């Protein structure tokens, strides 16, 4: 039973930390309709900055705002390349991502490990004071739950502000934003900045959690985020009251759980991706079927 609980706690922690990526993708893909590949670069960027700061003895919590700022800068680059230089959305993201690969290597080398002697946010003084008696695994779960929740609430609140409404409108119908006398380009840049700030923050938390940075850790994160958002929104497509951010969290947790199930089943490693793909297909097909059923009843 304990083993099972530990597994669930570990998986939930992963899902909740990585939910930050799916929030980011929710903003770029669902709201702005912008396929943003910057993610594969800004995720390791957040981790690289964090690893460097931690190994140089910076306070663990300081790394969070730094990662947010540097991630926003990455988003700003993609935004400027797309809006001001007129490069296509996909390409603009690829350009920034490619540049970030070198920048990350320059910052932190190919790998950078944070030694156990160095405190992470999960072992930092305020957390230890409150949760010192809780095993690290569950401390990680509690801290990541709080972070994912607080960020979700902040985002939900933002989407209800004038600026947030406008951001939602620009992806929906950018002509409307122009007729409202607002520069839609600036709004897109803002959206990309918020999204990449979240992604870099995720990289930062992953670095705290795994005590390491690797230059290749960004590979496939955009695809993960996309899958998480699509899974989440498919499941809740009939429940219009469920917020997009909630769907993003749920999607992220399901994604990580599916991989965990595949690992726990002891699959031959070469089949892991195939089984993951099949399980996703099941979720998506079931999600659509439920939707159809509801339509028939209505």
């Amino acid at each position, binding site marked *: 039973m304990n083993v099972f609980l*530990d*597994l669930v706690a570990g998986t939930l922690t992963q899902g909740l930390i990585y939910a930050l990526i799916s929030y980011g993708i929710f903003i770029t893909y669902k709201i702005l309709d912008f396929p943003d590949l910057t993610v594969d670069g800004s995720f390791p960027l957040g981790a690289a900055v964090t690893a460097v700061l931690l190994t140089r003895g910076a306070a663990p919590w300081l790394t969070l705002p730094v990662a947010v700022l540097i991630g926003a800068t990455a988003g700003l680059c993609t935004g400027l390349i797309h809006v001001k230089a007129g490069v296509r959305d996909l390409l603009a993201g690829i350009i920034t991502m490619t540049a970030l690969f070198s920048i990350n290597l320059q910052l932190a080398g*190919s790998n950078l490990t944070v030694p156990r002697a160095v405190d992470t946010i999960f072992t930092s003084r305020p957390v230890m004071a409150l949760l010192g008696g809780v095993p690290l*695994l569950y401390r990680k779960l509690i801290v990541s739950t709080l972070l994912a929740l607080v960020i979700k609430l902040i985002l939900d609140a933002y989407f209800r502000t004038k600026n947030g409404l406008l951001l939602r409108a620009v992806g929906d119908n950018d002509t409307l934003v122009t007729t409202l006398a607002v520069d839609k380009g600036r709004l897109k840049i803002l959206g990309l900045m918020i999204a990449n700030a979240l992604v870099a923050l995720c990289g930062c938390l992953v670095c705290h959690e795994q005590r*390491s940075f*690797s230059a290749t850790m960004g590979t496939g994160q955009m695809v993960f985020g996309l899958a998480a958002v699509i899974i989440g929104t498919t499941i809740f497509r009939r429940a219009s009251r469920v917020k997009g951010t909630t769907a993003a969290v749920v999607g992220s947790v399901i994604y990580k759980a599916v*991989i965990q199930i595949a690992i726990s*089943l002891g699959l031959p490693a070469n089949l892991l991706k195939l089984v993951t793909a099949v399980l996703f297909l099941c979720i998506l097909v079931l999600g659509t079927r439920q939707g159809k059923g509801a339509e028939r009843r209505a």
Partner: protein
Amino acid sequence: MKKTMKAVVCLAMCAVLLFALTACGGSKTAVKSIGINQYGEHASLDNCRIGFLQGLKEAGLEEGKDFTVDYQNAGFDDTVNAQIAASFAANNVDMMVAIATPSAVACFSAAEDKDIPVVFSAISDPVSAGLAEGNITGTSDKLPVEAQLDLIRTLQPDAKTIGIIYTTSEANSVSTIAEYQEKAPSYGFTIDAIGVTAQSEVTQAVDTLLSRNVDLLNNLTDNNVVGVLPAILEKTNEAKIPVYGSEVEQVKIGCVAAAGIDYVQLGIQTGKMAARVLKGEITCANLPFETISEYGIYVNSAALAEMGIALPASVAEKAVESNAA
């Protein structure tokens, strides 16, 4: 029509899941459980794992009676890698065995909470990876750089420039390149190194090196480069430039020679260390990591002949012929 389609899809899914379930075996009893996290499937890493199991056996431990093995490989995916490590920790394995640096970093981090001992193998530089202290030990596969330089000098007395291609994001490669650059001058060589970021750039790098008239190419244990070795050899054979490998598998594919470590041997050494820990003789924390000191000389005489390189008797007597053909 739609219904049959759905039925077919469902059946297919069930089949895959059943297949998956049959692959799942081994219940947990009083015997020690070992979780092996291998970063990906790759000849040297596989050899390392095979050697490890052999090492345990040679130390008198029997699989099923004394220990069970949960083998996972991450398919070179960092996220899966982390999740495998986390699931080992959740399953309370008695020991994590990590093959290759990223796996060791992930396992050591996941083991922090429960202080599970970690044994690693196939890591070039455990110190800089932060894996030298704590409840962790293992074996390092640092390449015998000087032996390799010596071998090249013996086979090609007139050679001046060595071309090396490496991936800038592979820690092992970066540290080995530094060592080559440091030691090459004392053997009368200069190193012309080209860093790449992806496998697709490797063949372009080969063209660049050939255009700069290097005398030979030398491989590291760089996954990206070794992965496209046949394509590299195609170009170098045409240009009549010999390629040296860094371990036996590369020589089998067509490199002329290598002074390299035997990964099975490395695995055996690791297995014996792990056995001592499992038997309770010593803890990982008190057992410093070991670097394999023995290396083998491997030659491919067909490839040597094609390059017009004669094999001196001094080399021939200690070399192992490794020609897959």
